[in-house]
């Protein structure tokens, strides 16, 4: 009997052995994997140091992997027009491909050469996977790859899109998939019923390009229904259940990096970084501080244990105080980062667009304690599950972890 149980566990893998990383920047969208202990260095080929597995991908994409139990899910796009959409699921343990589904894009597929149609990161509620693409195709798949529903938001709204590429990643809140589609043409935010794919609500937005992702406003980590929508003209809070606007905070905001919610504060990429105290009623969030030197580049900030970590456009990792916005230390790295840093209790993991990774020890000052080079471009923020990093480079998906029994 024990043998049978072990066999069954090996086959299907109890989800509890893996920590879910269900969306862009992980649980809560904070970029934090507090207790994770990924290695300090690794090689850049299969069978090299701490590379547990590396898998070829059939297309490109800046999207990040997500992890649901023993499933690692990634999206890609391929074809001369980037109109072939791929959703792939790998076994987290062995790296075997469990399934792959392909689709034909129904919206605009043109992007900047450095981006791709597969730019938004998929999201999962543990029951299904919601894969979104720059072409505004929204696909719901079961964890076994069965199609639940397929929406072509670019088909429904042909002017939706931006020919340098869209990249806003969806979230799922209370059974509603929230997608932020903001561009010079059809510009909107929609709440789609996670069960059926039908539109629950849709609100018009300014015809203005934005690449930021929606974020849940969660107080003390509680289950909330408020979604934050950041755009160049400010921050809007809406109710995920009906799209009702709850409050607005007018400010000039970044069109690329996204807000972070942590410690009952909203860290808004506005004039550098602006901290807002969460509202306790229906009024707007309250200004706490602004720090012009805490200015995220293309990636977003990560917040953990009273500290903010971000990489600016000059490739400098900056650590700030969440209470005051004071800059605590800076550390020059290399190149430009599109990926948001991953923060653990001990370290910060930074990945630049040239494929170089830096592991920085926290402390009075940051210190580089590990360097690795994937040898190909990295734009997506890695996922973390257990002590493993799941990294998506231009053409590969990697599992990086110590090659010991504790992985």
């Amino acid at each position, binding site marked *: *009997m024990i043998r*049978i*149980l072990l*066999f*069954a*566990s090996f*086959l*299907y*893998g*109890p*989800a509890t052995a893996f920590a879910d990383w269900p969306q862009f920047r992980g649980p809560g969208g904070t970029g934090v994997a507090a207790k994770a202990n990924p290695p300090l260095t690794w090689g850049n080929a299969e069978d090299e140091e701490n590379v547990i597995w590396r898998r070829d991908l059939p297309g490109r994409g800046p999207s990040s992997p997500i992890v649901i*139990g023993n*499933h690692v899910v990634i999206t890609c796009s391929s*074809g*001369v027009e980037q109109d072939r959409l791929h959703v792939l699921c790998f076994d987290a343990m062995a790296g075997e491909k*469990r*399934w*792959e*589904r*392909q*689709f*034909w894009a*129904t919206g605009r597929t*043109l*992007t*900047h050469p450095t981006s791709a149609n597969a730019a938004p990161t998929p999201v999962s509620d*543990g*029951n*299904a996977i919601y894969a979104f693409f720059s072409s505004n*195709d929204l*696909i719901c798949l*079961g*964890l*076994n*790859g*069965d*199609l*639940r*529903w*397929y*929406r*072509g938001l670019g*088909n*429904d709204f042909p*002017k939706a899109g*931006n*020919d*340098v590429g869209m990249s806003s990643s969806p979230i799922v809140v209370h059974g509603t998939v929230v997608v932020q589609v903001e*561009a*010079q*043409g059809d510009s909107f935010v929609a709440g*789609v*019923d996670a*069960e*059926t*794919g*039908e*539109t629950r609500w849709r609100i018009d937005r300014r*015809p203005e*390009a934005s690449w930021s992702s929606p974020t849940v406003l969660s107080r003390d980590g509680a289950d909330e229904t408020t979604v934050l929508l950041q755009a160049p003209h400010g921050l809007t809070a809406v109710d995920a259940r009906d799209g009702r606007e709850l409050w607005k905070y007018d400010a000039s905001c970044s069109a690329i990096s996204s807000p972070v919610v942590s410690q009952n504060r909203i860290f808004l990429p506005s004039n550098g970084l602006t901290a807002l105290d969460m509202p306790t009623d229906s009024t707007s969030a309250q200004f706490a501080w602004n720090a012009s030197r805490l200015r995220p580049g293309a990636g977003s900030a990560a917040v953990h244990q009273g500290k903010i970590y971000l990489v600016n456009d000059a490739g400098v990792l900056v650590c700030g105080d969440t209470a005051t916005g004071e800059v605590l230390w800076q550390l020059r790295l290399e190149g430009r980062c599109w990926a948001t840093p991953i923060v653990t209790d001990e370290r910060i993991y930074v990945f630049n667009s040239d494929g170089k990774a830096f592991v920085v020890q926290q402390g009075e000052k940051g210190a580089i304690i590990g360097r690795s080079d994937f040898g190909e471009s990295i734009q997506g923020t890695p996922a973390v599950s257990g002590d493993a990093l799941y990294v998506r480079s231009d053409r590969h998906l990697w599992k990086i972890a110590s090659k010991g029994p504790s992985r």
Partner: protein
Amino acid sequence: MAVNCSDAPSFRNVTMWTTIPRRLLIVTFPPFKIRLIAMNSLKGVHVRVVLTFASITLLSGPLPAESIDVSKPLQALRQVMPHGEGHRAAMSAWQELAQADAAQIPEILEGMTGANRLAMNWIRAVVDSIAEDTIKSGNGLPTDALEQFLGDRRHDPRARRLAFEWLERSDPSARARLIPSMLDDPSLELRRDAVAFALEQASLLADNGMKSEAIQKYRATLSAARDVDQIEAATKALSALGVEVDLPAHFGFLTRWKVVGPFDNSNLTGFAAVFPPETSIDLEAQYHGKLGKVAWTDFTTDDKYGMVDLNRAVGKHNGVTAYAFFDFVSSSERNVELRLGSINANKVWLNGVLLTANEVYHTNTKIDQYVAPGRLNVGSNEILVKVCQNEQTKDWAQRWQFQLRVCDKTGTAVLPESQP
């Protein structure tokens, strides 16, 4: 009964939450054998497997699927419409269809004919699911039937491509055997593979000193190619062999235009404004422009991709609008596509009918960025293009330009009688 698909947790037995491939879980409970079919539920495929201390074995083997009537579920998938219409019926139909036998894949592919773009993806997912499960289980796909489906060009081009991709998975020899004959295939993906193969063959001929044969091969390849990178590869190779290609004519770019402007586009008002050329075309007329009187002038582009630089044709300005006109003489009445590339806000009319309007400034551009179907009359056809420049002053926002070609739906150039 030791298998429970309910959502309510129970810990009386050894439990394990897991996700199983559809149709792939068999639980043996001697002397009984129970097949789980609860995955049709919209709730998904999370299944709680409860292992009792009885003798239960999990096998990850497939059940042989059976032929089912695919017509009704296929019809439900074909009735998926924009905005989520038809989803509820399609969701259960998809699960029903996914139970079909692999031998029915061609029948399901047939359902793509005439389907809308959304329905195509619902159907594609079912084909992929059945085919993937079949291969995983160690069984073969119906290769003869797939090849037969592929060979019939009356089928939908994308359905045929999908048939080819699964055929190739089961029969690796299919590519070398079938692709070379697909240079003129209506599926642009199959044609692209055929062109790639032909380019390699032509290159080998050139490398072996067979110049005339190589030129002949490259010419045939160029004629078949529809993708810019392959057209460029063939053109470059021909040039190296001493043969120059008229690229604008090959693509069908219109190069000899009448242009007029600048009209006003301050505060982006020009895109919606109706300036006189939108009312009627009078090539002899003078109009009140933004900076004074303006009149139609000739402008011929020598760009190999037909790009009309309005900063040259009209003058360098910001916050302005210009029009370009082409009298396209057609020898026949026919459906065509007008394909525009422009990094500026734009509109295109054919014989006074607005075909496309795009109020987007300085994001990106490429050949065939905006594709608009239209119909040519016999004789003269008025093509009018409006291009607006905004008031941004940064270097990257100074391009004011467009390129336009007329072609059929596969991208084959349709040339005017008035421009060789």
